């Protein structure tokens, strides 16, 4: 449940931040599109977390993509 709600929210925001930094658009446009895309990402993360075989799987599916987003972010920054 924690992985789904707050965890998914964190993943969606990490993905949105990555999108804002890397999308080949003006700053305002990148932020707008990345924010809109983050909502379906959150939704997908919630479904993943509840469908996962175990809590460990659920967390892995959330934390690993979020970390990858943050890693690329810090590499490009």
């Amino acid at each position, binding site marked *: 449940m924690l992985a789904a*709600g707050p965890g998914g929210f964190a993943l*969606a*925001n*990490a*993905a*949105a*931040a*990555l*999108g*804002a*930094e890397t999308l080949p*658009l*003006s*700053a*305002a*446009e*990148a*932020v*707008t*599109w*990345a*924010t*809109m895309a*983050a*909502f379906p990402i*959150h*939704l997908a993360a*919630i*479904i993943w977390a*509840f*469908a996962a*075989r175990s809590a460990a799987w659920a967390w892995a599916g959330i934390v690993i993509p979020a970390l990858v987003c943050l890693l690329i*972010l810090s590499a490009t920054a």
Partner: protein
Amino acid sequence: MKANFHLSMIWLHRWSGLIFGWALYVIALTGTVVVFSDEISVWMQPELPANTVAVEQALITAQTHLQRAAPVAEFWSITPSAHHGGVTIAWAGADSAGNDRGDNALFDAVTGAVVAARDSHGTEPLVDLHFRLHSGPVGMWIVASAGMVMLLGLVTGVIVHRRIFRDFFMFRIGKGQRSWLDAHNIAGVLTLPFQFVIAFTGLMIFPVLLMPGALQAGYGGDRAAYVSDWYLPTQREASGMSAPLAPLLPMLAAAEHQLGGRIEQIAVAHPGDAAAIVTFWRGTDDRLSMMADWAAFDGPSGRMLASQTRYPPGIETSGVMVGLHFAKFGGAWTRWLYFFSGLASTALIATGLLLWTVKRGPESGKGLVAALNLATIAGLPMAIAAYFAANRLLPVDLTERGEWEIRILFLSWAACLGWALMHNRWASWAGMMLGAAFLLGIATILGGTGPVTLSLALSAVALGTTGLLLIRGARA
């Protein structure tokens, strides 16, 4: 794995539906009512001049009034109503005697007299319930989560009912739980596209507030900087040198021509100064995107300085999302479509909540769930009916009259909750439905003529019939 996935989706649908069901019901019902927010708000102030007035006429009245009351102020704001014959005029700064003050009042756009309408907040408390459950920022987060849960419920609902479209053609009446489930499925399939759009676009009204990651990365969280990158009506400081303001009427004509639509609001920054700026905002009720185009004019000369009618594609897209949610774009038929879709969605949530208790039976220790169901599903319509009745019953000159209307809304809802916790029987359901019908009947009788009164009458009949059917069902 597949069966497991299916089961976990059933579990997710059931529990997220229960926990957020009550909030979703409140959001859906109030949202359905405020589709006609403008009309209801006018109905709640019957003293307003009924006939709408051309923007030109309202602007002449406003400029005449403002030149006399506050010729050299910090700002003027003029908002001619599209729904009644009033114009809202606000200003702040020096009045004609040089004293620093301000004013905000509704004037008759033809006579220029202050409109003495009864104090009422119109649909404000219903809108407040709709987008933040009347509980400030905390409520907004609950509503946003509920929106997410609604999207989740739609997706998992389709997964749970693999045969959902076949079940759609099945309705078994009088079979208890099976009937509720059939009703739930029918309402769900019918409104699936509508709900998907309304939940997603609802989240798109404050997107960077709800999902701040991108804004944080792109602008360090500075929302004003982000907005000013694509929306920045011309501004400038006062010069300190005085210069008379040119007549606003020719500027209005130029703005209408430039923006191609009805002007919704006019603002003047430091009127009477040589650097005065007049800004016109175009209304958005005639189109999908809710981005308000603007045109700015030099105050003393009346020359157009700048205007904006185009936005980057992403911004335009988010403007369209907001427009799809507010449903102002397509005129009356679109709004009736939204209204009935909203009603069906409310029914979907209500049947879902009822299934939860019907399935488990009254004796299985789910008394609290059942009581909250009663207080929400039947109690909220009764509270809204009480709000409309109070609008006609409270003395017109009561102090804090508008506040009292809102207090009556919440006090009657609290009374319903108290009653539901003590006496949760079928008779209580019928009683609240009949009570709502009775209160709407009062509002109808005292409501004058017009489409809003007619709608209240029809709602009274619908709720009354439901109540009577419930009594008959309880006897049988």
